[in-house]
C-alpha cells in the first residue's frame, strides 16, 4: 500500500514531465514552457556547463550571504597578525599586509564582481541593441554613420581604451563600469544589426507594416525580441572577458579603491610580497580564475543549446 503522499506526488511529476514533453501543445504557454524544458534538458546533459552554472550559483550565494559566511570583518585590521600564512592565527586563507582576513575579503569581493558584471552585462548589450537595430532598420546614412562609429570603437584595443577612459574620468568602480561598457558594446551592435537585416524584409514585418505600425513599434515590439537570444549567448561568452578587464583595471588601481576588497586590487596589493608571502596575491587570482572559467563553461553550454548550428 502506498502512502498518500507517495501516490500523490509521483504521478503528478510524471504528468508534468509528459505535459512538458508533449508533441502537441494545447496552449502557447505550454509550447513555451516545453521549449524551455527541452533546452534545460539539453543543457543539463552537458556536465561542463552544469559545473559552470553551479560555480556561478555559489558565487551568487556567497555574495548574498556574505555577512553570514565571512569569518572576520573584511575591513578589520590586526597588525599583530599581519601576513599570517593560510591556517595560521585562525585565518583560513591567511591574512594580508594589514592583517585583514583574505577569505572574508574574497567573500565580500564577490559582491563587487557581481555588481560590475551585472551592470556591464545589462548596459553594453542595450547600447549595442539600440545602435544595431536602428542602423539595420533605417539603413542609408543612419546605417553608414552608426556602423562607422561601431568600427572605430572596434578598432581600438579594448583595455587601452578603457584605461584612457578611466584615467580621464577618474578611478572608481562606476567609472570602470562605464569604461568597460564603452569598449564592450560594438560587437553587440554588429550582431543586432545582422539580425535586423535578416528580419527586416521578412513577410511578418511587411504584414505589421501594412497594419500601419511605425518604425518605433516595429523595432521595439518585433525586432528587439528576436535579437535577444543571440545577444544573450554573446554576453555570456563575453562575461569572462568583462571580469578579466575589470580585474585588470582594479589591478592597475583604476577600479574599486582601497579598502574595498576588489579581487584585482587585492592581487595588486599582494604583488610586492609574492616571493615571501605567496597567498596574498594567489587567493584572489584563483577566485577570478574560477568565476571567469565558470562563465566560459556556461557560455559554451548555452551556445550549444540555443544556437545548434555553431556546434563545433
Amino acid at each position, binding site marked *: 500500500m502506498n502512502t498518500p503522499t507517495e501516490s500523490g506526488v509521483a504521478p503528478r511529476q510524471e504528468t508534468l514531465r509528459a505535459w512538458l514533453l508533449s508533441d502537441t501543445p494545447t496552449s502557447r504557454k505550454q509550447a513555451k514552457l516545453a521549449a524551455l524544458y527541452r533546452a534545460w534538458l539539453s543543457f543539463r546533459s552537458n556536465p561542463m556547463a552544469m559545473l559552470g552554472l553551479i560555480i556561478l550559483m555559489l558565487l551568487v550565494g556567497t555574495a548574498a550571504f556574505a555577512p553570514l559566511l565571512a569569518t572576520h570583518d573584511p575591513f578589520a585590521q590586526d597588525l599583530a597578525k599581519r601576513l599570517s600564512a593560510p591556517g595560521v592565527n585562525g585565518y583560513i586563507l591567511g591574512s594580508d599586509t594589514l592583517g585583514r582576513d583574505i577569505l572574508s575579503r574574497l567573500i565580500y569581493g564577490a559582491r563587487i564582481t557581481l555588481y560590475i558584471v551585472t551592470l556591464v552585462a545589462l548596459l553594453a548589450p542595450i547600447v549595442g541593441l539600440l545602435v544595431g537595430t536602428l542602423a539595420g532598420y533605417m539603413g542609408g546614412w543612419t546605417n553608414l554613420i552608426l556602423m*562607422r*562609429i561601431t*568600427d*572605430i*570603437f572596434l*578598432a*581600438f*584595443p*579594448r*583595455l*587601452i*581604451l578603457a*584605461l*584612457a*577612459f578611466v*584615467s*580621464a*574620468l577618474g578611478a572608481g568602480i562606476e567609472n570602470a563600469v562605464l569604461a568597460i561598457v564603452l569598449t564592450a558594446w560594438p560587437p553587440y551592435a554588429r550582431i543586432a544589426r545582422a539580425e535586423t537585416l535578416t528580419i527586416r524584409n521578412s513577410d511578418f514585418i511587411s504584414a505589421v507594416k501594412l497594419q500601419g505600425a511605425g518604425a518605433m513599434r516595429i523595432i521595439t515590439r518585433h525586432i528587439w525580441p528576436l535579437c535577444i537570444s543571440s545577444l544573450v549567448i554573446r554576453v555570456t561568452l563575453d562575461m*569572462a*572577458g568583462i571580469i*578579466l578587464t575589470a*580585474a*585588470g583595471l582594479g*589591478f*592597475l*588601481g*583604476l577600479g574599486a579603491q582601497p579598502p574595498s576588497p576588489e579581487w*584585482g586590487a587585492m*592581487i595588486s596589493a*599582494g*604583488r610586492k610580497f*609574492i*616571493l615571501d608571502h*605567496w597567498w596574498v*596575491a*594567489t587567493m*584572489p*587570482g584563483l577566485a*577570478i*580564475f574560477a568565476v*571567469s*572559467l565558470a*562563465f*566560459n*563553461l556556461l557560455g559554451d553550454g548555452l551556445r550549444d543549446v540555443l544556437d545548434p548550428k555553431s556546434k*563545433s
Partner: protein
Amino acid sequence: MPSFPPFILASFRIVLSILVTMIGLLFVTFFIGRVMPIDPVLSVVGESASLETYNAAYKALGLDQPLFVQFFYFLVDVARGDFGVSLLTARPVSQDLIRVFPATVELATVGTVIGVVLGVPLGVIAAVKRDSWIDQIARVVALVGYSMPVFWIGLIGLLIFYGILGWIGGPGRLDIFYVDMIPSVTGMILVDSLIAGDMSIFWNAVSHIALPAGLLAYYSLAYISRMTRSFMLEQLSQEYITTARVKGLSEHAVVWRHALGNVKVPLVTVIALSYASLLEGSVLTETIFSWPGIGLYITTALLSADMSAVLGGTIVVGLVFVCLNILADLLYKYFDPRAQ
C-alpha cells in the same frame, strides 16, 4: 566616373575607410584628453594658480577656440608626431614612445612566434583526432587561456620559476650589470646582442624574456589552436579531401598539404589579430615583469596622471592595432586566389 577601372575605385574605398577609422580613433582620444576631464586647465596649472595664469593657460591650450578648430590643431600636432611633453620624463612623448616601442615589439613577436609554432600543429592534430585525448587537452588549454588573468599568472610564474626554482631571470630585460653594455641598434636586446656578438648578454636576455613571452605565447596559442581546429574541421569535411584520399594520397599529404594549404588563408588573419591583441595584452604583462615597453610606459604615466603620455601611448597602440587589422585584411585578399 565610368572611366575608372574597378580596382582603383576599390582601393580608393579602402583608403577612405582607413582614413575615416583613423580620424575617428584620433577623435575619441582627443575627446578623452580634452573634453572629458573636468577642467584641463587645472591639470596644467594646478589648483592654486592665479586667475591670470589660469586665463593665459586657457588661451595657450586653445580652449577659447571652437571644438572643431581644437580638433584640427590636435590632428596637425599628431601628424607632426607631436604628442606633447611627458610630465614624468620631461621629454617629448614621441621620443619616449620611440624608445620604449622596440621592447614591446620584441616581446609580442617572440610570443606570437612561439604561439604559432605550437598552436597551429596543436589545432591541426586536435581537428584530425577529434574527441581524442589530444583534442580534450587542446580544449582545456584554450579554456584555461581564456579564463586566466594574465597579471595573476605572471606573478605566480615569477614566484615559481624565479623565486623558488631560479630557472629564469627576474623582472626587467637584463640583469643589472649587463644593462647598457651593448650599443642599441634596433632597441631589441635579443637582436642587438647578436649584432654585437655578445652571447652572454644574449642568453641573459633569453632568460629574462622566457617567462613573459611564454605567457603571451600561451594566450596566442589558446586562440590560434582553437581557430586552426575549427578551420581544419571545416576543410576536412569537404569533398576534395575525400577525392584526395580516394586518389590514394597519404593521410599526411591530405592533412598537412591539402587541408592546411586551404586553412593558411584565414589563418594569416587570425595570426595578425593575435599579434595585435598581444600588443594590447602587453600592458598588464609588462607591468608585472617591469618590461620597459609601451604598456609599462602607459601604466606608469597613468599612475602619475601624465595625460599626454597616456594619450600618446593610446594613439600609437590604437594606430598599430588598426594597421595590423588592415594588414590582415589585405593579406587575406592577397592569399585568397578567388579575390584576385
